[in-house]
């Protein structure tokens, strides 16, 4: 998994969630995205699902899968690497 993909995922999070004043470098690759991390919720999760499908052609079918995929930037990048068409 490349650092380039990690940065792309960070940018996807910033752009799709319109997080103002944040750069990719501000997001820790292994930090939790929900709860104590970036504080994302299920509304954000669906926004990320749509963005991942649009940008990478990767489908996250349900919240159970999403809870694993959206654990961190790294887990998102790993999922994209495994499922990218």
């Amino acid at each position: 998994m490349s650092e380039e993909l990690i940065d792309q995922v960070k940018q996807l999070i910033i752009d799709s969630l319109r997080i103002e004043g944040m750069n990719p470098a501000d997001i820790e690759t292994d930090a939790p995205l929900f709860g104590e991390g970036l504080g994302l919720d299920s509304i954000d999760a669906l926004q990320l699902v749509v963005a991942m499908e649009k940008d990478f052609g990767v489908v996250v079918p349900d919240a159970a899968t999403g809870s694993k995929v959206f654990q961190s930037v790294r887990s998102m990048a790993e999922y994209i690497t495994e499922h990218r068409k």
Partner: protein
Amino acid sequence: MNCFMFPGQPLLRSELLPRDDDFDAIRELAGRRALFDLDGFSWLGEEGTESVKLQIYGVAMSLYHARRLRRQGIKPGLMAEHSMGIYPAMAACGSLSEGEVLELTFRAGCCMAQMGKSRQYALGCVIGLTLEPLLAIAENNEVYLANHNTSRHFLLSGERKNMEEAEAEAFACGAFSVKIFPCDAPLHSPLMAEVEGEMRAIFAGYRYREPAFPLMDHIDQDYLTAADLQDFMARELLLPVYWERTCHALRAAGAGSFFEVGVGDSLKKYNRWIDNEAK
């Protein structure tokens, strides 16, 4: 143009409360007019339910944030409300005082809580499905559309056992997420007709002044006048909140900057989704 958006009842309370003169004033009012201690999240007199606690907390925090925005010199060109966000919105518009709004919230909440003594009700937050399958699920399980927040974010309302069946069907239909929240009353559904008369009597106990700012309602996207407020508060108990179309109407009316005046940022997130789809 600035738009102040007043959210509905929060589902959780924040552990951290502000510490300043504005919060002190709101805390004092909540204690005196709603018999509720914001610091201890507990009743000072006649006890209400957990849902009523959250309703008073949500309204109090909206009143606080409205004060802070005023203090920062940020003025609204337009106001909008989601569900019980109408209560603090009325205070921000000058139609009622902050104290009256807190008292009204307590009285209305206690009235609605009577419904929960004889039946168990729940709200179901469904994310990921579109409207058509969502409405079919609601009809199949005798629950009701309570919030149409975005094209993929809805709230259902009804009896708890029916909601659990609706939850299972929603997952089977491919919903991304479904969460059930117990509540005192089936808000925004025809089942609320059971307490409509008592609620109208409560709303009739106040004198409403003309809103000082345009205040858009979430049912018809009309601007509410002082004469409309009582009837609107009664109607909205029985009808869904249409936030998606309210967001479009606010944009069409010239709203450019949105301020969520209350707990959380759900309305901003709905708007983000709606704006993305509109592009």
